[in-house]
């Protein structure tokens, strides 16, 4: 079968890092990713399924890896070579369409659940990510054992599978995973604003993740005044469509927040600011902006993966700003105190908001260099989500390529 595979070649990672500064496609050409032909993955045991990929999205974290920008933090939490692709809609051998909740959690790795009914992303000890019978890997798409969505077939555990409702297109379904990330971030805002009548929440960045966060905020914190810094016209339109109250250029975000909360501006900082700011882009300058526009004792939620940055944290110290990360999804505590699985919430959101429209372009695996270049410059090229389309490779599940399942 065809698969895109990332190998640990330090020289290529370095080359990709340099090349990405020149052009988005150059990193794909010289970097550690290659299109290869390999055998389909062996079944990993009881509870594991072979999934045939239909669509698999290209995410910012994928690009970061391909371009050699990923942090060394992940060195012990991924296993090379691996096939990327964690935003996946595929089908099982019986034709059931599924989306993958990609976190390789306790159940998938054979560990006891942290609590009854826990989702793959739950738990406060990450030992299982590097232990157990699988190679290390935080998610499908970063684990050598399971493979990922950028190939014809990969392995997924039953704890990761969510059936796609018939009314959802593949394009909509491939947006469920990023939508879940956005909803998780939105719900992380709730404790900071629970007692505020009209909380102000700023979102810096309106790529896929920023837009999903906006959608999540509007659905789950309906009284929030959402102010978005979006760079490109199509991002600004989507931000409005998904419920932002004010949409401005990123450099205008601070002033827009100030106008809304009615505070002063002292130097580069607002005297007050947003109750919560969601960081949904990926450069260090932007983090500083988030700190500047968040009120003292407010919260900055980092949705984008920052890697190594240099930031003056004096303001954070003085303003007692909470800086927290937001990674994936799991079991959510809702504003009314009940709990829900993020993916269930995301499936409903994607259907209600027609989020399949965010899929701007699809490419066959053979054209991966073009696909990656397109995804890396999505904003500038008027796109949001770029995905690989493997539906034309085999119209139906091919039993000849289907390894025997051991379940």
């Amino acid at each position, binding site marked *: 079968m065809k698969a895109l595979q990332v190998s640990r070649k330090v020289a290529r990672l370095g080359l990709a890092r340099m090349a990405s500064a020149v052009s988005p496609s150059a990193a794909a050409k010289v970097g550690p990713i290659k299109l290869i032909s390999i055998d389909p993955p062996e079944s990993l045991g009881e509870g594991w399924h072979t999934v045939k990929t239909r669509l698999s999205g290209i995410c910012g974290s994928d690009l970061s890896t391909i371009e050699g920008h990923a942090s060394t933090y992940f060195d012990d939490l991924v296993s090379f070579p691996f096939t990327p692709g964690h935003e996946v809609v595929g089908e099982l051998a019986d034709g059931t369409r599924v989306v993958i909740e990609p976190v390789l959690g306790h159940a998938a790795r054979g560990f006891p659940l942290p609590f009854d009914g826990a989702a793959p992303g739950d738990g406060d000890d990450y030992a299982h990510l590097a232990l157990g019978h699988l190679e290390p890997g935080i998610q499908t798409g970063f684990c050598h054992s399971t493979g990922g969505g950028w190939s014809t077939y990969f392995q997924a555990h039953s704890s990761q599978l969510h059936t796609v409702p018939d009314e959802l297109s593949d394009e909509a379904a491939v947006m469920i995973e990023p939508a879940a990330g956005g909803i998780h971030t939105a719900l992380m805002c709730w404790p900071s604003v629970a007692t505020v009548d009209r909380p102000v929440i700023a979102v810096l960045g309106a790529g896929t993740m920023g837009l999903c966060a906006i959608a999540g905020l509007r659905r789950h914190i309906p009284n929030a005044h959402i102010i978005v810094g979006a760079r490109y016209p199509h991002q600004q339109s989507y931000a409005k469509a998904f419920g932002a109250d*004010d949409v401005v250029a990123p450099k*205008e975000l601070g*002033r*827009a927040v*100030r*106008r809304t909360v*009615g505070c*002063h*501006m002292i130097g580069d900082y607002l005297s007050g600011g947003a109750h919560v700011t969601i960081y949904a882009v990926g450069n260090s300058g932007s983090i500083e902006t988030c700190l500047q526009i968040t009120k003292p004792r407010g919260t900055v939620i980092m949705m984008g993966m920052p890697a190594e940055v240099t930031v003056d944290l004096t303001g954070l110290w003085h303003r007692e700003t909470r800086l927290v990360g937001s990674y994936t999804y799991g079991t959510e505590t809702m504003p009314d105190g009940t709990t829900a699985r993020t993916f269930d919430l995301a499936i409903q959101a994607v259907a209600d908001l027609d989020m399949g429209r965010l899929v701007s372009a699809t490419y066959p695996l053979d054209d991966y260099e073009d696909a990656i270049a397109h995804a890396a410059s999505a904003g500038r090229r008027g796109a949001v989500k770029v995905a690989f389309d493997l539906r034309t490779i085999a119209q139906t599940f091919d039993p000849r390529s289907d390894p025997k399942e051991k379940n």
Partner: protein
Amino acid sequence: MPRPGFVLEVDRNTPPILFWRGENYSLEKLPAGRSRVIYAPEPLEALKDIDGSIVDALLNPIDHDPLPELLFPGMKLTIAFDDISLPLPPMTRPDIRQRVIEAVLDMAADAGVDDVHIIAALALHRRMTEAELRHAVGDRVYDAFAPRGFLYQHDAEDPDALEYLGQTPHGEDVEINKRAANSDLLVYVNINLVAMDGGWKSTATGLSSYKSLQHHHNPKTMEQTRSFMDQHKSELHKSNWRMGKVMVDSGVKVFQIETTMNTDTFPKPFNFLSKREWEWNARDRASFVMSSQALKRTPTRLARNIFHSIEAPHQMTSVQAGEVEAVHKQTTENVWKQQLVEVQGQTDILTMGIPFICPYNVNSIMNPILVMCMGLGYLFNMYKGKPLVREGGVVIMTHPTPWDFHPVHHPSYIDFFEQVLTETTDPHVMHEKYEKRFAEDEWYKHLYRTSYAYHGVHPFYMWYWGAHGMQHCSRVIIVGGDVKAVRRLGFTPASTMDDAFEIASDVVGRTPTITHIHTPPVLVADVK
């Protein structure tokens, strides 16, 4: 004998005409046979004895007792003066205000008056810096009064420094500076750069608060002001005059001193800018070529500094003192003597070169909102009778219109540009939806009171200033402007004057008649 204003009918022999483009200028060829250029009258002779004339005006006022008879020991005397927005460009020292204030202070000293406050009547404009104050009132006055807190700037946001005097029959609130209201005598020292200035507008605007100003600085009033230069057809002035009556009825005693000045606008190296192009000599042509080419290569900030360092040689042509309305009537006549040019009829297109300066960017940046205000607010309104362009016609301006704002002087302008203009360019809509929010914004108030910022509501006033022009014209084109900034203003960008005429042809056809208002120097067209 200075020559009067002149209307040149453009023919094939007419040389290209000078158009200002902010901190530069260009020569543009206008179509022959259907274009005309209006030139300002040449500068009138200055008064031979300026200081003597000032004293004479104070001793022989119009419809008023002489100033010395109004002064007595133990009285409260307040002298208010026009702020940095006048004259343009700032004049060479000594400033007219210094000369008048010194004369008033001499008489006050002779009368044994020792409770004197001197107040810059800046309404909602930015505060003046020490250097700007020294330039206006002179070092002697500044050093004698400012360190002891007796020379200061009107603060329209200090509730303790404002006095509410009542309402006009039209329901307009009158609130002015408390010290001025409670003085035994308020002497107002005015510079009448254009006929819009002076009269009751000096006190009712310069010393008032937002509570008062909102009654006449609004879209409805501005659309019914035709024009700012014609007091009798100006709702803005009628409102100020009604407020003046409330002041008089409340016991505010005003002694008005108004001055006019000639149009000697540019010093030697730049005096070709005031000349008629066909009269340029070789030196003028060389000055134009060298300066315009050099300015093209000069960083904008440096070019701004060069132009804002210009001090105009204009001088006083008249001074009159006494009762406000009687004084202003005579002042206006003297302004017309210098500025009025008779023009027959309207044209399809009005062209104007926007210079580097307007009343609100002295030592600052002409941001896009001020470009709009200067074009549609000021130059469009430089008429008596009817506008130079027909209703439904086109205005073409030349200016680089940079997306650039002075962060200290114009903080609320930035938000206005980013927030309000992205949603609407309709003065009525923004008035209803946004004005109050900007006017009451605590940060803007803080910056207005303690820094050098225009009041939060000021960009709205600038936009309203152009309301009549916007309503009158069907299209506004800016040649050479930043495309995004021009579009944000709701106008049409054009690269060249020919492109602008081509764009305008959609509205006015392929052979439109054209008027170019050749200013500065200041002129007002008396359109018959």
